[in-house]
């Protein structure tokens, strides 16, 4: 059943200041270990719970790191973090993130990015800081003349009960920029993805304009962490060949691009968990159709991603021609990569790969691994919620069952499962602590955002081949992981790896 026809979907309520948490909205969880088929069964029965861990490791909150690292790259906007100085220090890379991309590759010559912290102090906590927030808004307006001012809240502003909406309502008439409050205080939810929804809620509520005209050739592409500049270029290349344009949001987009989301022909995913809220909101408010699966990762996924777009833009025929042309170029190269990987062990066995993925990546990545001739009998995922339940079921049906560890950057658990399963290749999202120290191959899943080299490409047809070749490289020299394992200390005592359960410290008494 297409997702936009599901009865269980609650409408998005833009009269509210913010979205519901993922825990409530989609029965999200931060912890699970078992077969994917069991997870599906448990999720359907409503048996998936959030649990505390007795040993919790720092892993990210609603604000950090996604919003602090990415929202500060929206052009001609200003971001105000209403909090102590440390909540926004992760944003310090803002001016450099996209700056090193050569202008020859389409990076604009001039752009300004700005963020401000209200720098809350002891006195502010005691007496309130709404004046400080208002002053910051005026300062941002005067200094940067932005089109939008995003206000990102923090635990401190939340706990002391700052009236953000009140302050905004008071100053908006005096400020040209559209003020967009984003309620992303870390304490509100255990699930990082609540932050995505909170951000999109603000965008939908305050920024997206009623469509002046529908742009039939415009495809909204809501991007996510791990897509580089080259991924954009590949997607633009493919869409461009059939006369379509990609509207990449929100990272490094302009405010105008966000305002025009309502004019697009379709909203396409790069990451369904990231895109779902905005896609649904645009459909509900402005009738922009959307799909959530798959992402353009691997040959087959890219085919069906393009076909979906073709369907919504009336370009079915052009897309079929495009797919045929592209296959002629890329499928032989993909087959060569597949052959090399299939024969790598030389004994008929497939290489085993373990990836640390977001739940969005999970859906498209495992079929892509299969296409590459890799076996993935287990996967780590940051989180899980019902938003991907149907698609996960489809995927398990098509690709077979696997073990799934739901785990938001819990380094001890990830180290445990990596050590005990000992896959041929482990793909680290870079936040797994010392899990990279091992005898067998280790490489990255995510590239730097500003990486403009085709070697780092992962999306579309060119990316399917490039990342396959990248994985082959990773098998050819393992000295770094090996020497680090041998020469540096481990974070945990030996018994941790000797006992069988990565969820040893799950605190079942605290299920929510």
């Amino acid at each position, binding site marked *: 059943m297409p997702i936009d026809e599901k009865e269980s979907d609650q409408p998005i309520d833009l009269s509210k200041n913010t979205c519901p948490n993922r825990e409530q909205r989609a029965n999200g969880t931060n912890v699970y270990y078992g077969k994917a088929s069991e997870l599906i069964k448990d999720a359907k029965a409503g048996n998936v719970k959030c649990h505390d861990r007795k040993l919790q490791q720092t892993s990210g909150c609603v604000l950090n790191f996604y919003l602090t690292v990415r929202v500060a790259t929206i052009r001609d906007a200003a971001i105000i973090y209403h909090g102590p*100085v440390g909540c926004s220090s992760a944003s310090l890379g803002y001016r450099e993130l996209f700056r090193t991309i050569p202008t020859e590759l389409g990076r604009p010559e001039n752009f300004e990015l700005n963020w401000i912290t209200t720098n809350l102090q002891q006195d502010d906590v005691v007496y309130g800081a709404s004046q400080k927030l208002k002053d910051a808004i005026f300062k941002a307006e005067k200094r940067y003349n932005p089109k939008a001012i995003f206000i990102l809240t923090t*635990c401190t502003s939340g706990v002391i009960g700052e009236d953000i909406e009140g302050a905004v309502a008071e100053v908006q008439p005096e400020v040209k920029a559209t003020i967009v409050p984003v309620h992303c205080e870390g304490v509100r939810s255990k699930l990082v993805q609540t932050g995505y929804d909170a951000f999109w809620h603000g965008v939908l509520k305050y920024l997206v304009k009623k469509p002046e005209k529908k742009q039939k050739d415009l495809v909204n592409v809501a991007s996510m962490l791990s897509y580089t500049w080259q991924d954009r270029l590949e997607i633009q290349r493919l869409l461009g060949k059939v006369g379509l344009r990609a509207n990449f949001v929100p990272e490094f987009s302009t405010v105008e691009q966000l305002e025009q989301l309502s004019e697009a022909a379709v909203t396409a995913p790069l990451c369904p968990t990231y895109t779902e809220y905005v896609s649904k909101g645009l459909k509900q408010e402005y009738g922009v159709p959307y799909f959530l699966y798959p992402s353009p990762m691997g040959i087959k996924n890219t085919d069906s991603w393009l076909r979906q777009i073709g369907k919504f833009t009336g370009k079915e025929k052009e897309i079929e021609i495009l797919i045929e042309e592209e296959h002629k170029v890329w499928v032989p190269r993909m087959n060569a990569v597949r052959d090399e990987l299939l024969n790598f062990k030389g004994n008929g066995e497939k290489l085993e790969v373990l990836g640390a993925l977001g739940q969005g990546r999970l859906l498209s990545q495992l079929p892509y691994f299969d296409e590459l001739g890799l076996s993935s009998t287990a996967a780590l995922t940051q989180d899980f919620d019902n938003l991907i339940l149907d698609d996960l079921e489809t995927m398990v049906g098509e690709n077979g069952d696997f073990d799934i560890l739901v785990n938001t950057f819990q380094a001890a658990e990830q180290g445990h499962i990596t050590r005990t399963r000992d896959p041929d290749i482990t793909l680290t999202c870079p936040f797994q602590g010392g899990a990279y120290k091992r005898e067998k191959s280790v490489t990255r899943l995510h590239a730097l955002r500003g990486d403009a080299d085709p070697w780092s490409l992962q999306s579309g047809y060119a990316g399917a081949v490039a990342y396959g070749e990248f994985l082959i490289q990773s098998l050819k020299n393992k000295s770094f992981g090996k020497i680090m394992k041998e020469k540096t200390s481990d974070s*945990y005592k030996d018994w941790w790896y000797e006992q069988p359960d990565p969820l040893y410290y799950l605190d079942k008494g605290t299920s929510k």
Partner: protein
Amino acid sequence: MNIKENGNVKNINQSQNADFAGKTSIEAPKYSCALAGAYGSALGVYGLVPLLHAGLGCGLGQLFGQFYAGGQNAGGPVGGTSTPTSGLVEEHVIFGGEEKLKKLIESSSEVMEGDAFAVISGCIPSLIGDDVEAVIREFPDTPIININAAGFNGNSYEGYELFFEAIIDQILTVQPKKKGLVNIFGIVPFQHIFWKGELNAVKKLLESIGLEVNIVFTEFEGFEKLKELPAAEYNLVLSTWNGHRAAKKLGEKFDIPSIVFPSVPVGPKQTSKFLRIVGKKLSLSKDVVEEVIKKEERSTYRLIEYSGDMLLVSRPHCYFAVVADSNTAINITNFMVNELGYLPDIIQLSDNPPEEYRESIIKALTEDLESTFSPEIIFEPDSYEARENLRNRSFLFLFASSLEAHVASEFGAPNVGVPHITVSFPSYNRVILNENYVGYDGGLTLIEDFTSHFAGPL
């Protein structure tokens, strides 16, 4: 010195006072919060395991905003995503976070490799009034330090002082004095981006004149090194303002006098002066000290000589600008002006030092300069203002943080092509493991680093 006599010094206007007191909002201040400073300090002590009693993202935020920003460093075996945290959310705001912390201490002490723990409490426990001390008392057999470092109580530099104050109050006991043992203060892990290399270089330098040196950070058996602090004969504070509170408190409790230097010494001139002062204060043999100085100076200047043609032909005696923390601004400016003949155009101090230390910082930046030109000096924690202050200046190279890396190209002609060298926090475009500019060798490294940006065929 009367600072008003120096016509170029733009000291302390009203808005800057307000910035320091935290009364105004600022763009991208070049430091993080007190929790970040204490967390970085704890990670600097090998064997100490930080436990963050804080929100779920406080640690991860600092991985990005303090450690990656501090020269693209990961946090080490117990840093970053390996760091245990109580991960406080709404239910703890309502019911308190003490139970969660208790479980965290239990589990961490079972599974984490380490000699001791540091519970670092952030904003939430402070706002909800958790009794952290009472929780820690339940673990009498586990060495645990209690550091209250709410982010709204100060910045990274403050976190460093809070870390040492907690150590001094809770852990240290009287030790037999060791003659010739000195402690080093004033270098803040991850915030002073060359911290690891600087500390080790200072240690070697002082060992060369016969001293024993406790740098605490980067030493294996770091927790033991912490406990040895009271045994020192002197504290050497290598900053106009960082580490002053820590050294004073240690001094008062264990009778250790402090000698304050404006920063780590960079290049032969500062280094020889440093060694002579230390030698005199600690009554070392003058012959030994002078012998070291003579030998090192001779070989260093012999090497600097190799750079002479290139320096004089490519960019001699031009203006340069600095945007950096006080420590770094002082040692680089002095080396550039007093040994290489450059002219200081504008010095912007990004570390927001408290009012009472500013006169000594200005003094260290303007006293005894070989140039007949004094720099304009601005205390500027706001990155927007710092950028604007660099417009329409004469400088031909810029020592700054990586936030200023693209300023020259953003300003357009004639600034395009003005080299930028990252020497201070944040440093996303420069990876720093052990590199530093301390001592005789350090001066050579600095010459190599900045001249390589403009050296070319004649």
